[in-house]
């Protein structure tokens, strides 16, 4: 008995230490540190349900420990036959009724919140973004604004943004834990949800539905900036000149390689709705390369030379002419200069 309790204690301590070390996770990623009303609603329900459950657990454990301490077979009493109790109506009623009450306490706010979060009535006047999930990248079309971006999604802080989401291939799931719970992105219908960030920041987004080998590499960002900054970003993005010449001979070489090598067939620059591959308009401002890598020139060259090594199963591999290292380097130089807006992730206080 003693040994049993001791082991249980050490187990509790170990997990406790583990938790302390890990804390509540990383800010702007963890659902424990909500930065938007939806995530707050979820967290409140999590805390409420956890509180109820901890209460139940304590009651169960209390009885459990008493049972184990008091009713172990004692030495010399091996032949003792306990009273054979059939049941007890009162007790059984109690532990039927109390759980019903506890469940009701949880059910009411759950239902209320469910309808609250499904309320899309502000969508007509609000900012609407068409979100498209692809293996393995995200595309954002700001509806009625002629703005297309991929991977990084800019939103104004403190305002609900209405998302209309569909997939071009398999099911994905749109999840930005610190500002909202997730919603599946299906190929056969458009799902709607809204997100709102209460603070400026660069929020991590993740795909939460298994979508192929690179499922874990399909990260994206939601970048919440102030309303003025957002307006600035919108006007910058609307006035992009896709043909603008980059600075420096290498980058210019890169630009022509980009056009000659049929990169443009899949990758649009500017507000063209072509979206076979990620839109590269503001590639130079992206927080990451291919969802998870540092956007350094070296990494971009590596990507161009062998995308499969960075993102297994991606749709770019084998669909463009082979590049020399020099060519890849020029293209990278050009791409890194694609910084059409004054507003960058830094403005969100990364």
């Amino acid at each position, binding site marked *: 008995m003693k040994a049993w309790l001791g082991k249980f204690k050490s187990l509790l301590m170990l997990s406790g230490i583990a938790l302390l070390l890990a804390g509540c996770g990383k800010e702007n990623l963890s659902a424990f540190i909500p930065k938007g009303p939806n995530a707050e609603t979820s967290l409140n329900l999590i805390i409420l349900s956890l509180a109820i459950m901890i209460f139940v657990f304590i009651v169960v454990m209390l009885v459990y420990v008493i049972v184990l301490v008091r009713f172990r077979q004692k030495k010399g009493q091996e032949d003792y036959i306990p009273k054979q109790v059939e049941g007890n109506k009162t007790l059984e009623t109690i532990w039927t009724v109390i759980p019903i009450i506890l*469940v009701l306490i949880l059910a009411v706010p759950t239902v209320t919140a469910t309808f609250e979060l499904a309320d899309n009535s502000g969508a007509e006047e609000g900012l609407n973004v068409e979100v498209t999930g692809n293996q393995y990248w995200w595309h954002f079309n700001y509806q009625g604004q002629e703005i297309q971006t991929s991977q990084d999604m800019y939103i104004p802080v403190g305002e609900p943004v209405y998302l209309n989401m569909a997939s071009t291939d398999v099911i994905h799931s749109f999840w930005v834990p610190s500002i909202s719970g997730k919603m599946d992105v299906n190929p056969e219908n458009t799902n709607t949800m809204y997100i709102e960030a209460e603070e400026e920041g660069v929020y991590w987004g993740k795909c939460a539905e298994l979508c192929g080998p690179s499922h874990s590499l399909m990260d994206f960002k939601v970048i919440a900036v102030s309303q003025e900054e957002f307006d600035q970003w919108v006007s910058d993005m609307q006035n992009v000149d896709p043909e603008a010449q980059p600075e420096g001979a290498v980058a210019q070489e890169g630009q022509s390689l980009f056009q000659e090598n049929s990169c443009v067939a899949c990758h649009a620059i500017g507000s063209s709705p072509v979206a076979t591959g990620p839109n590269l308009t503001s590639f130079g401002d992206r927080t990451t390369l291919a969802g998870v890598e540092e956007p350094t020139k070296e990494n971009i060259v590596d990507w161009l030379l062998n995308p499969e090594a960075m993102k297994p199963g991606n749709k770019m591999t084998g669909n463009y002419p082979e590049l020399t290292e020099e060519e890849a380097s020029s293209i990278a130089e050009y791409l890194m200069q694609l910084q059409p807006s004054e507003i960058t992730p830094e403005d969100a206080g990364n």
Partner: protein
Amino acid sequence: MSSAATQKRGFGAMLWDYLTTVDHKKIGILYLIGGGFFFLLGGLEAMIIRIQLLVPENDFISAGLYNEMITMHGTTMIFLAAMPLLLGLMNVIMPLQIGARDVAFPFLNSLGFWLFFLGGILLNCSWFLGGAPDAGWTSYAPLSVQSPGHGVDFYVMGLQLSGAGTLIGGINFLVTIVTMRAPGMTYMRMPLFTWTTFITSILILFAFPALTVGLFLLMFDRMMGAAFFDVALGGNAIIWQHLFWIFGHPEVYILILPAFGVFSEILPTFSKKRLFGYTAMVFATILIAFLGFMVWAHHMFTVGLGPVANAIFAIATMAIAIPTGIKIFNWLATMWGGSIRINSAMLWALAFVPTFTIGGMTGVMLASTVADYQYHDTYFVVAHFHYVIVGGVVFGILAALHYWWPKIFGRILNEAMGKIAFWLFFIGFHLTFFVQHFLGLMGMPRRYWVFLEGQGLDTGNLVSSIGAFLMGIGGLIFLINIIYSSVKGEKASADPWDGRTLEWATASPPVHYNFKQLPLVRGLDPLWIEKMEGKGKITPAEPLDEIHMPNGSILPLIMTIGFFIASFGFIYQTDHKAWLIAIYVGMAIALGAMLTRSLKDDHGYHISKEELEREAE
């Protein structure tokens, strides 16, 4: 045909005996061996997964292989390990508990086993034939339709075969319990393990056909160009999710209810008290099963079904907490006032109570839709279902194995090793999965091949992997215990634990006809009643007379081999039409075996009264 004679025969004869057996106990043992084998495979896959997630951005295995690992781990553990192990226990124990000589359909029982086993082998053939399925154990369309290679084809055919086997097993148990209970064994005198077998079989009967249809649709889409899940031709991939979870949620109860049954046997035995609130326990089981069919969409809260559907399914799901709570408290009340003996079997049962309570609690938390938008498809869910399926089902299976091992094999498992294995596994389990609740909410979705550095997920994953290794070592010690005990284990008496139910009233291991004379049941816990009244022996319900027994048959195996061959034909006919021959040959073998079965009369054989009398001593 006595057991002594069996042991004296050569290995070939024994093999033939097992290949053709229709004896429920031998088929049960086959299920245990098959399920145990796949459990090891699934465990190995789990270890590989945890090695990959030991450190951030690890490249121990490739992304594609990782997806194959998680798919096969889940599929193997659910369909080929947990369920067959439970079916094996039911097969051996349930007929003994109701005082029957065999099951209602011994031939089908054998067929059910072979379908399961060859289905599992078929699925695992994929490892050697171009790659295992990689669309997750849930195999969501359209990912599963688009998955290249033949991996998912093996998933479809393998599960179709083993699913058919399970369905046959379910029907067999249902009929057995309805028609073959010993005199006096009324429904409300049946042991809880028999009750849960009964309810589980009903769940199998009504849940598996939905999976069958889902698998057919996937098969037609992948192998025959149908358009069920092809959006371009008007298809709808959500249908797969509905069908899968209409099956999948009851499946959870198919797994957990028998484990509940196991605990309802072990806790009273080792507390020397009858089960508290027997009637409530029975009705709670029925209620859980009934509600189990109405909650499937809680797996689909984020699909976009709308707030009305989400709210309804949320409430239905929460309602399941009520009968489950009743069970937990009744178990506690069973022990209250008892005289508790703790051995390995009881340790597993005791560990189950807090562990499963946590799993049940997180289940209620998951039912809260808006909270679920955060939990869904993250490690929180992974933690939850491992608390339920390991903490509930695997603990249950291990408890049951320690408890019934003497009855099944005639030897008692080594206690010291049993306890070491328990502590390692138990501590390892909580280390592995408790932190995963937090990992999920900290932003780690499930089925992630790598997690990134600097996202606060490193420590949790490291702890989790260390725990997994402890579980692995615990599992290995259990395996060593089995091998050691089958050679050197203490011989078991008929009733080593001071049992209460009928299986302890016959020899360990039981003779092949179970009971020389059918027992007369005079109440709940019939053996206990006789012991309390000082007799210690069950009163027979009939005079000694000849016993009718079924003949063994090789046909179930042949039939299954036919389906096995045909499955390869279906899988590969998309590559080359010549494979159609395999379909024809396979189906001809299977149908030929069926035809033989129906044309050849099989009346079984009789054990004469004289022979029974000779065997008396």
